[in-house]
């Protein structure tokens, strides 16, 4: 399994999206998120985007006020995950039009839906933006 979890966290350290691909109890999730956020948010722009934590490698990237944190296995390609984060942001950007934190907050389900299109049980399966977005657009047309 490549990706173990995906988090979006704002500057204040509040979680805005959390998607886990392995089962952790609520307490474990809280603890993990707390530790990771503390570790990653303290880092400066000049430092590298990879943090080792427990048995994960965290690949993170900051867009404006939002941090995208992806926990991966140790043998995952870090740069590919960075590109994946960028792809995710671009996809959301295309859908929401200049995506911001509020978009994700109020349309969490859509964000989850996009993720589900892109990632299946921790493996990246879809990387074409239009393929990812077509079901969502269809849904919006329906309602």
């Amino acid at each position, binding site marked *: 399994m490549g990706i173990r979890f995906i988090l979006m966290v704002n500057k204040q350290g509040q979680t805005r999206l959390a998607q886990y691909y392995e089962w952790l109890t609520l307490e474990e999730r809280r603890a993990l998120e707390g530790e990771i956020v503390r570790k990653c948010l303290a880092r400066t722009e000049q430092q590298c985007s990879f943090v080792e934590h427990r048995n994960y490698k965290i690949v993170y990237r900051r867009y404006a006020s939002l941090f995208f944190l992806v926990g991966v296995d140790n043998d995952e390609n870090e740069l590919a995950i960075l590109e994946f984060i960028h792809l995710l942001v671009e996809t959301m950007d295309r859908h929401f039009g200049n995506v911001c934190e509020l978009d994700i907050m109020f349309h969490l389900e859509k964000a989850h839906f996009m993720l589900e299109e892109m990632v299946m049980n921790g493996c990246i399966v879809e*990387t074409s933006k239009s393929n990812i977005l077509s079901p969502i657009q269809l849904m919006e047309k329906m309602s």
Partner: protein
Amino acid sequence: MAGTSIMETLFQRDLDDLIKGIRQQQIKESLFISKAIEEIRREIKSTDLPTKSAALRKLSYLSSLHGADMSFAAFHAVEVMSSPQFFYKKIGYHAVTQSFNDDTPVILLITNQLRKDLNSSNQFEVSLALECLSRIGNVDLARDLTPEVFTLLSSNAVRVCFKRLVENLESSEPVILSAVVGVFCELCLKDPRSYLPLAPEFYKILVDSKNNWLLIKVLKIFAKLATLEPRLAKRVVEPICEFMRRTEAKSLLFECIRTVLSSLSEYESAVKLAVVKVREFLVDDDPNLKYLGLQALSIIAPKHLWAVLENKDFVIKSLSDGDYNIKLESLRLLMSMVSESNVAEISRVLINYALKSDPEFCNQILGSILSTCCRNLYEVIVDFDWYASLLGEMVRIPHCQKGEEIEHQIIDIAMRVKDVRPALVHVCRNLLIDPALLGNPFLHRILSAAAWVSGEYVEFSRNPFELMEALLQPRTNLLLPSIRAVYVQSVFKVLIFCAHSYLLHKENISSVNTDNLASEVPESVFARMSCENSDLATSEAPASSEQHDSFNPRNINQSFGDLSIENGGDATVSNSQASTSASLGRNSFTHESIVNLFNIVELALGPLSRSHDVEIQERARNVLGFTDLIEQEILNPVVQGEENLARAETEASRVVKLMCDAFSEELGPVSTSAQDRVPVPDGLLLKENLADLETICGDIQLPLSSSFSLSSTPLGEAVDISRTNLQSKDETEPSHESTSLLAEHRKRHGLYYLASEKSEGASNDYPPANDPMSQDKLNDDAEDLLKLTEQSLAPKKKPNQAKPRPVVLKLDGDEISVAAKKPELKDDLLSGVVQDVLLGNDGVPSSSRSNRSENLSGKSKGKEKLSTDLSLETKENVPGEKMPDHVNTSSRRSKHRSHGKERRQKGQGKDGEEKEDNGQKEKRKSNHHRGKHKAHQRADEPLNVVAQTPVIPDFLL
């Protein structure tokens, strides 16, 4: 009822309201959330689907972002999920995916719903169900729903299971292709061998595809396969190099580098190219690339150290990078480069960095030095004197918080490495006499180790009086009671040593007036020997056992050797000290000095005898009791006549000797499992009445500690804390009868005894300690480090090894990590079937196939793997397990150990060979194994071999 439902529908807050509400609550967010959950609990029970689903939606939100518990809503989620409308169904599925796990009781209820949705004509419903299944699938669900997933595979132009999955590798549809490659990448991680036959397909993708995501996955697959199949490696190395030259994408480039470095490291040119690219990463401004570059280097470090050496300047520079992660990575890289030849230099570089670093990184550095150096029983350390001084230096680093590790290592090397003791005692003395160190609570544990070492090996001390003052200095009241107790115990040992030396000295003077003046050295040797080996001390009485007799000459030699070591150690500090220390035995144990010593001890320990801590109190009282006993006899001889004096002193010396003997037994490390390994010998009745033993041992003065004694302090004083884990190595020195009994016993059950002498061979030719090399480098500061490492990191061949490495006592219980990786045990039933599918037998749909022989071969394969593993394991265990047979002489032991090493290397070499062998050979080999272990399954083999061989060569040759 209907009314409330309408009311709820009308006035229910939807998710947006909830989010807005949360955003408005600045302070009482948790209160707001718990209120909202109360609401949800009410709403979710509604029979109205919109209300229920809105409530569930809110709950999912709160659970995912605010950690609310949603297990109570499991059943409601199932209800919403079964709604026919996609909008609600989606909410239900989301909730289920997010909150269900194997322990959720209602998970069994969703099987039918999943089946229904998997069979749905609406592809979006199908995808919801698939996503859900992939996340929460457990054994039950998988068993019940696999047919549906298979059907699905067929509906999308993919017919039956695995075979069809393989066909999709040739799909032109990029989405399908990337999904399939993803699947195989995952599968390969678990059991690469099964997928070797697919290599041609993967190769085609590697060459044809333009999709970087896909290429990365394929590279990952090849990284696994290439290690199994050298011909495959040969084939893929060129395209991968081509990628490295051409590609713009850093992620792909990095994956290529990683693949080459980890799996294709035999291909010189490819490795060279990869290292060039790594270099580009390292000098890049992007910290990400820097970090990855360092990681790449640490992959290659074990096999191609030159790659690291080429970039060593950068690695060392990275130690002072602003990014903690990069620093850490370069630290790891440096540690991976450590070998016997450069450990001193690297440690020096790092200690200098540690001095300048922030506390966290400083301790990281110290920790990694400590753990690297003690790896495999101090494998990399040749010069233990240097290591002892390094430990001493670490203590002086202001941020040092590694008390526990250093404490452990000081005691550990003191016990294991006999030759280091003089140097170590010197280091410990320097620590103990520094009152400043007592102020740092992080160092207290180290001080306790230092106190223990100084007490236990006091015979190596240059100035016991100074040591005594250090142990009794007023600031010791800052120590924890438990550590203080160790101090008191050490005081006891030092006191006894001094008294003993004094008495011996006196005896010698009175008996041989002139001779001894001429030869100081033998006398001090004699004094020390008497402490070190009680049987030698009492050699006036013919107490030595037959077995010890044989050791005697060597022992003397060795003691001389030890002395020269001690003096050699001194020499580096100041040459003049050597002579003073040699003459110390004579000059310093004067009557006044002993009186003075007793006074100091009584003065300092007096208050402690009323201490509230029982350990301190008891030990202090023991010491005071001893001084009371001895004092009148030793210290007031002035008024007595000559004969009286002689008589009194013989009595006193008897007591002192007794105590000295009690302390002089050496404590050796004993593995925790030692007792378990001793089977109860035949005819031994553990519960037999031993009353008759008293008649045999009646005239023994010491309470006889039985031959299996665990404690070395037979006089019944409190057992030293730091000793509680240890057991006495030698037997106590009992009287004639029992020694002969013991000798008998030892002869018969020799393998249960630890060696009585560990390092006779090594110590005789032990040259002067402290390499001048490391001394020279002491003053180097950071600027010189680069230059310094330039020479030191270069792979020298056994540089300036003026002396052999001292023997490190090794126990069978010590775990030595073996580099060779043991292949993991897998559930090979699956892979066996998979292989069968891949290797032809097209027509039969594998899902329905329960061909007996197929299954059997799969199973037997698993078993065969297991059995080879076992044989491998036992091979590795051999050196450890055989150890006890040979513990009686250390020379044999060391031989045996080296033999063990050889074997291990052989084992590795074999591994390498195995890798180089082609698959066919490998199979033959495994058949061979199987033939050995599972002869009755031979019938299956021919079929298997025939089926497996043709596929790979077609592609590769």
